[in-house]
């Protein structure tokens, strides 16, 4: 994007007003995915495989179909024929195969059939009438075992061009990058540490299960209401899977009860549409929590080897990482992202990273907040911490010494523009937390983290009303208060009060395409588009003022919500407020709107540094996090309170991932812990207050300097907590989660 008219002094941006949708959300009025009803509505339910890997020999639904309460039964045959392609090229095929099994059930919980019936209870009961004959096949759920020569093959031919010859067919993508001379770099090192690390799969754990209400006729026209991070991708994908035209399916995003990447794709939506088409009635489909855990998109599990050489003065002379990510029974595990992010915080002369995308009999992984990056950071930052301990160096000083900055050649190749890592480290060093004394039994951990951030296709429309208020239509669902930041940015440009702006999340029929609310892109990309749309409206406002004054339009400028003559030569006119122009806009040229459509390509990478204190009970291995500080570069914080909220939420999710959250599969390949009782996300009493420091190093790719803040906050916590726990326990923890049995076992092994 053009970097014209960069702003640095603000009226509205940086203030902390109440969010526009606050009232709806504290009164129970806000409509989330499961809160929609339609006349004549049926309820759907999905039959799921109890086997981790099985050939579907036969599905007999005749008893279910014959039941008086049942109005439709669908199987794979009720979906379009989508061609198979290797790697990520066959993504529609992969999604279809995931939402409804074809020849094989590929994981415990894989959908095999679905029913629509007159009530939710009737639908659940009807599932028991469907008889499925399975031929159970050998399965594998562990990433290292899935790569072994004798591992069961999940799907032949799924590997793309990148996989070296001789690898197991379960390895479907391969990434290798880096620069310099590793051998020479390691030779310069005074100390080399090489170690292996493991992280288990975790789930985004959004509190709202997937839910939708679908209406589709056999004329190919449909309506879909669903909880999603991106309704255009839902529209495009559902249309492809059902064999209808994209534009004939109107998708409306409900309020969304959390996503964190997990609602960037579809699971039940195509199934509800297929049921609706067959029954010719609206169908509501809501997942149970157990279905959410078994059959949506958890993150990858990972097995990693990291080797780093350091000189006595703390300089990293060489670094190498191998990252194997398991992404379920489909290509897509972000081993490439893990590899590219792992060493990105550091200015390295010699670095090499390898990433593997490996299939196993688990649900198809989905994005989870900086997908792939937290695992790599865990391995790399743990080794750096160990090097600091062994060499007697301060962990912040060592990171500062090696920190990437503007002009550094990134570990993934290009040269960094202006970035803010050094600023976060300086802030960490200066923070009272870093110098606070520790109690016996406590340890402190530090970690840096990196994430790319994303732009993506974006459309925004802004319309002015006669009374001088404005409505902004954006296409990115509001997951965490983005309506407030959009309104602030629009207010900044238009110069009208924040309260006079209404921000609506438009449906797919009323706005052009918008990429998903992911990649920390909403405040960046929809924000940029809002600013540009508002500027577009301002141009028109200036034209109208110029016409009224009878002066050329370039003699008019916009200031504080008014058209004013641009200088003494332009004429002597009183400022003309926006509302005076809009009052008669219908008679002075028609309605005034602003639009912006583009794919902004200047998201600006982001860095953070976290400081954690943890206490370990040496007799039970139980950890408590006693103090936590997040420091992260926001570029420019539009609504600082919601920026803090992103930092705190990322840290809390990281604490869960580090300490207790994990997918536990039994020998039988079935998920053992598919409820919140046993999938242990942090509860209120587990956590301390989470301090935040917002660093602002403006992003050159955004008119107000915004960098996305949603994802980076989950990159450092795994390592920061592991470092704190390892320092408290006196033993290096190399496997996540650091559950009490693992810590106690490590303490015992350590004597």
């Amino acid at each position: 994007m053009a970097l014209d008219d960069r702003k640095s002094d603000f009226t509205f941006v940086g203030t902390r007003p109440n969010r526009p949708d606050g009232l709806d959300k504290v009164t129970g009025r806000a409509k989330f995915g499961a809160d929609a009803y339609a006349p004549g509505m049926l309820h759907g339910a999905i039959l799921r495989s109890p086997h981790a890997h099985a050939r579907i020999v036969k599905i007999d639904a005749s008893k279910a179909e014959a039941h008086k309460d049942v109005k439709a039964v669908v199987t794979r045959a009720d979906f379009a024929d989508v061609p198979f392609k290797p790697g990520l090229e066959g993504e529609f095929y992969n999604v279809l195969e995931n939402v409804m099994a074809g020849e094989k059930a590929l994981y415990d919980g894989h959908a095999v059939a679905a029913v629509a019936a007159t009530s939710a209870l009737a639908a659940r009961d009807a599932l028991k009438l469907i008889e499925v004959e399975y031929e159970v096949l050998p399965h594998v759920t562990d990433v290292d075992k899935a790569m072994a020569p004798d591992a069961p093959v999940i799907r032949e031919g799924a590997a793309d061009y990148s996989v070296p010859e001789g690898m197991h067919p379960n390895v479907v993508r391969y990434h290798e990058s880096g620069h310099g001379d590793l051998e020479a770099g390691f030779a310069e090192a005074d100390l080399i540490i090489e170690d292996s690390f493991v992280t288990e799969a975790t789930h985004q754990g959004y509190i709202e299960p997937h839910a939708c209400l679908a209406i589709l006729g056999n004329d190919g026209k449909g309506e879909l209401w669903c909880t999603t991070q991106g309704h255009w991708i839902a529209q495009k994908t559902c249309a492809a899977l059902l064999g209808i035209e994209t534009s004939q399916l109107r998708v409306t995003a409900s309020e969304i009860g959390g996503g964190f990447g997990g609602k960037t794709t579809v699971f039940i939506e195509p199934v509800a549409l297929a049921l609706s088409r067959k029954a010719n009635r609206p169908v509501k489909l809501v997942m149970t929590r157990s279905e959410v855990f078994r059959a949506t998109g958890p993150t990858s599990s990972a097995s990693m080897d990291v080797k780093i050489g350091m000189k006595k003065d703390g300089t990293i002379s060489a670094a190498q990482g191998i990252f194997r990510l398991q992404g379920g029974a489909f290509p897509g595990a972000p081993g490439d992202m893990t590899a590219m992010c792992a060493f990105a915080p550091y200015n390295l002369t010699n670095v090499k990273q390898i990433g593997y995308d490996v299939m196993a009999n688990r649900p198809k992984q989905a994005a989870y907040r900086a997908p792939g990056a937290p695992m790599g950071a865990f391995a790399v930052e743990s080794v750096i911490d160990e090097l600091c301990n062994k060499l007697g160096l301060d962990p912040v000083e060592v990171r500062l010494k090696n920190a990437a900055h503007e002009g550094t050649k990134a570990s993934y190749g290009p040269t960094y523009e202006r970035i803010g890592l050094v600023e976060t480290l300086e802030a960490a060093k200066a923070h009272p937390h870093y110098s606070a004394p520790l109690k016996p039994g406590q340890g402190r951990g530090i970690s840096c983290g990196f994430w790319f951030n994303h732009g993506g296709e974006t459309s925004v429309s802004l319309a002015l009303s006669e009374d001088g208020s404005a409505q902004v239509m954006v296409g990115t669902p509001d997951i965490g208060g983005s309506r407030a930041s959009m309104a602030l940015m629009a207010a900044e440009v238009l110069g009208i009060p924040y309260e006079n702006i209404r921000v609506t999340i438009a449906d797919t029929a009323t706005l052009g395409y918008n990429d998903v609310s992911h990649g920390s892109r909403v405040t960046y990309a929809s924000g940029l588009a809002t600013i540009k749309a508002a500027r577009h409206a301002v141009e028109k406002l200036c034209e109208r003022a110029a016409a009224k004054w009878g002066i050329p339009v370039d003699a008019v400028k916009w200031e504080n919500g008014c058209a004013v003559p641009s200088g003494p030569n332009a004429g002597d006119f009183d400022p003309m407020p926006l509302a005076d122009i809009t009052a008669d806009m219908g008679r002075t040229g028609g309605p005034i709107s602003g639009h912006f459509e583009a794919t902004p390509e200047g998201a600006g990478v982001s860095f953070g540094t976290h400081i954690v204190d943890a206490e370990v009970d040496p007799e039970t291995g139980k950890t408590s996090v006693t103090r936590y500080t997040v420091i992260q570069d926001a570029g420019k914080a539009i609504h600082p309170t919601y920026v803090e909220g992103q930092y705190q939420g990322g840290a809390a999710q990281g604490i869960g991932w580090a300490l207790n959250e994990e997918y536990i599969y039994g020998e039988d390949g079935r998920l053992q812990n598919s409820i919140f009782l046993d999938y242990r996300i942090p509860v209120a009493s587990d956590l301390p207050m989470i301090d935040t420091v917002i660093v602002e190093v403006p992003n050159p790719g955004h008119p107000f300097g915004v960098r996305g803040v949603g994802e980076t906050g989950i990159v450092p916590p795994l390592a920061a907590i592991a470092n704190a726990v390892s320092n408290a326990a006196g033993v290096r923890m190399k496997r996540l989660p650091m559950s009490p049995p693992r810590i106690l076992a490590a303490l015992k092994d350590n004597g």
Partner: protein
Amino acid sequence: MVEVHLWSGLRSLTGGQQVVEVEAKTTGELLRALVRAHPQLQAPIDAGVSIAVDGRVIATGLTEPIPEGSEVYLMQRLRGG
């Protein structure tokens, strides 16, 4: 001419070359030129790539300008959560 730096995993598709020189004024031209120079690069490009121009990562756009003398890196397509 633009020097395009590839990630090392692509060397097997370019006869060992990690830097490819092509004539291109936009990101789209650059991708087409890469395939002309090394037809095997079609597969990674189809699978999805991003292009970093002077450090700015262009995730998808084919119309972004590439100024003369820019530093250009081909990267795997970025995905977010």
